[in-house]
Structure formats: structure tokens, C-alpha cells
């Protein structure tokens, strides 16, 4: 596997040198459109729910920025509405957002040449959320190292702007939207990610997505608490195992 450590001539010629300013523009352009729009729409749903749960406008908007992960935000609003104790809210939100651990574990190695300080790294970690994460995993491998953080930052900024505006509008419009529209806005987010995942084409990713999509609903039926984490371990390890086996066979064949 030694040869993997050296960039090939092919990769070098695609990005002869990094241009962080251009990467920033590209990140904004990529986010402006479906990614920001989907976050805008799904955060409208959260804004409405938060108002009905007794939050005020300011704390609702701060929640979007501070948690930056819709499932955990929904759990927080629902549990606040029923007056759940603080430790129960902490456990509920942590469980709903546990996917951020494998997501950050997968994203961070792609920033291995980033010379950012620990403070910068821990600040960057806050911006790990599904929409820019998917874009990063798709785009980073072919991108110059110095372009990656500017690209990600610009992409996230546009997404967060859309999310904050959506949260505030959803808060103001709570209870006023017709029901078919509310349903469609909630449907928008899973539909978007289904389409985004359809665009993943490398073998390990396709295997993991397929196995996870089949196993997830089944194991969730067995255990709503542990179904999804166990899905990740089983389907992810399966995909990794099959991909590694095929890699080894391919490298043996080429020798």
C-alpha cells in the first residue's frame, strides 16, 4: 500500500497548486442551491416546533447554531415541551446526534496536512454536519490540501445562513402553514440525502450505503436506541471487508 502515500502525476496535474480564495468561491457556489435550500426548509420545521415547545426566537436561533444537527434539535424541543429533566435531555440529544462521532472520524484524516492549531481544529469540529460533510467527502480527495478548509468553511457559512433564516421564518410562521406543505418540507431533507447518496460512486461508499439502508430500518425495529449505531458497525465493517478483499485481489492481479 506504500504507493498510495504519494500523489500520482495524474492527481498533481488536476490541481497544480492550491488557490484558497478560488476554493472559497467554489464552496459558496456549491452550497448555494439545493444544500442551503434544504437546510432552510428543514430548519423551518424546527423553528415551528421550537415555538410550540415554548422556546423564544433568540434561543431557537442559537440552538440551530449551537447544536447544528437537526435530529438532536428536534429531540431537544420535544423533550423541553414535556418538561423532561436536564440529564434526560442531555442523554436524548447525545443519542440523536451520536452520528457526529463516525462522521468526524471519517472527515478529519482528510485534513491531515492542515497545520491549524488545536483551537482552530476544535472550532472547525463544530461545523461538522451532514450537508457539508457529504460535499467534503466527495470533493476533498481530488482537492489540494490548502483548499480544503477554505472550501469547507465557505460551504458551511452559506448553509448556516440558510438554516438561521429558515429557523427564524419557521418560528414566525408556526401553526400557519398548510399541512401538505409542512409534510413536504419535512420530507425534503431525507429525499435530498437519498439523492446525494445516489451520487456516491466509489466502491466502499456504495457498499456501505446499500448495506446500511437495508439494515437500518430492520435493526431500528429491533432496538430503537441501538439499531442505528449497530447498523453502522455491521454494515460499515461489511463494506470495509468486501472493499479490502477486492483491493487486495486487484493489487495481486496487477503484479
Amino acid at each position, binding site marked *: 500500500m506504500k504507493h498510495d502515500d504519494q500523489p500520482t502525476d495524474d492527481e498533481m496535474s488536476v490541481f497544480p497548486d492550491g488557490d484558497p480564495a478560488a476554493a472559497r468561491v467554489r464552496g459558496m457556489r456549491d452550497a448555494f442551491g439545493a444544500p442551503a435550500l434544504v437546510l432552510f426548509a428543514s430548519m423551518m420545521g424546527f423553528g415551528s416546533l421550537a415555538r410550540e415547545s415554548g422556546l423564544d426566537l433568540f434561543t431557537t436561533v442559537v440552538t440551530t447554531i449551537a447544536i447544528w*444537527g437537526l435530529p438532536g434539535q428536534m429531540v*431537544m424541543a420535544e423533550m423541553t415541551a414535556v418538561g423532561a429533566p436536564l440529564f434526560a435531555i442531555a442523554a436524548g*440529544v447525545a443519542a440523536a446526534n451520536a452520528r457526529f462521532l463516525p462522521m*468526524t472520524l471519517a472527515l*478529519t484524516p482528510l485534513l491531515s496536512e492542515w497545520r491549524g492549531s488545536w483551537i482552530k481544529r476544535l472550532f472547525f469540529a463544530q461545523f461538522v454536519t451532514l450537508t457539508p460533510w457529504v460535499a467534503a467527502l466527495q470533493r476533498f480527495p481530488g482537492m489540494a490540501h490548502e483548499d480544503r478548509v477554505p472550501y469547507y468553511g465557505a460551504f458551511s457559512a452559506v448553509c448556516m445562513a440558510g438554516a438561521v433564516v429558515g429557523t427564524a421564518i419557521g418560528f414566525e410562521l408556526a401553526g400557519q402553514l398548510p399541512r401538505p406543505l409542512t*409534510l413536504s418540507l419535512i420530507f425534503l431533507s431525507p429525499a435530498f440525502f437519498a*439523492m446525494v447518496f445516489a451520487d456516491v460512486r466509489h466502491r466502499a461508499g456504495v457498499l456501505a450505503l446499500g448495506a446500511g439502508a437495508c439494515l437500518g430500518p430492520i435493526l431500528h425495529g429491533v432496538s430503537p436506541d441501538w439499531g442505528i449505531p449497530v*447498523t453502522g458497525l455491521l454494515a460499515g465493517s461489511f463494506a470495509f471487508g468486501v472493499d479490502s478483499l477486492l483491493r487486495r485481489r486487484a493489487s495481486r492481479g496487477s503484479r
Partner: protein
Amino acid sequence: MSTLELWLIVGVAFLSTYVWRAAGMLIASRLHPDSAISRWFACVAYAVLAGLIARMIIIPEGALADAPLADKLIALACGFAMFFLSKRNTTWATVTAFFVFAGIALWRAS
């Protein structure tokens, strides 16, 4: 509910989400992207997300539970069709799925 209580809840929710991100950042900072462990992390992350999205569509909680599964599957099928017709344009595919779903929801409401 007092404002102080609300801020306490938001603070606790922030911390219980951020620990996952910080842990991931601290553990993986020195890893090479082509190492076996990095590739395994990526596989686990993809599998978790696919499981989560599939669950949201097939076994939804909250308001979306009212929409029949067939509506969602028809909308997704149209979205995937547009995805391939538009040469893998995720924006057009998402917009198509959204409008097909909204159309069916409106038709059911009328």
C-alpha cells in the same frame, strides 16, 4: 419556563452534541486518509447515515408518519429518475421528489 432554564437546556444540548465532534477530531487528527482505519471510519459513517435516512423514510416519527409509504416511495422514484435523466444533478432530483410528494399530499388533502 424561565429564560435561565431555557439557556441551561440549550447549553446542555450543545455540550452533549459537541463531545462527539471533539472526540472524533481528537482521535483522528493524526491518521492518514488512506490508512485502513480511516477507510473503516468512512464506511461506518456512510452506513450510519444510510441507515438513518432509510429509517426516516420507511419508519418516520412525528408528522411524516401520517404520509403513506407509497407516497414517499413514488416521490423518491421520480427523484431518482430525474437524477439519471439530468446526468446526476442532485438539485433537480431533489426538486422533483419534493414537488411530486407535495402534489400527492395536496391531492390527498383535497
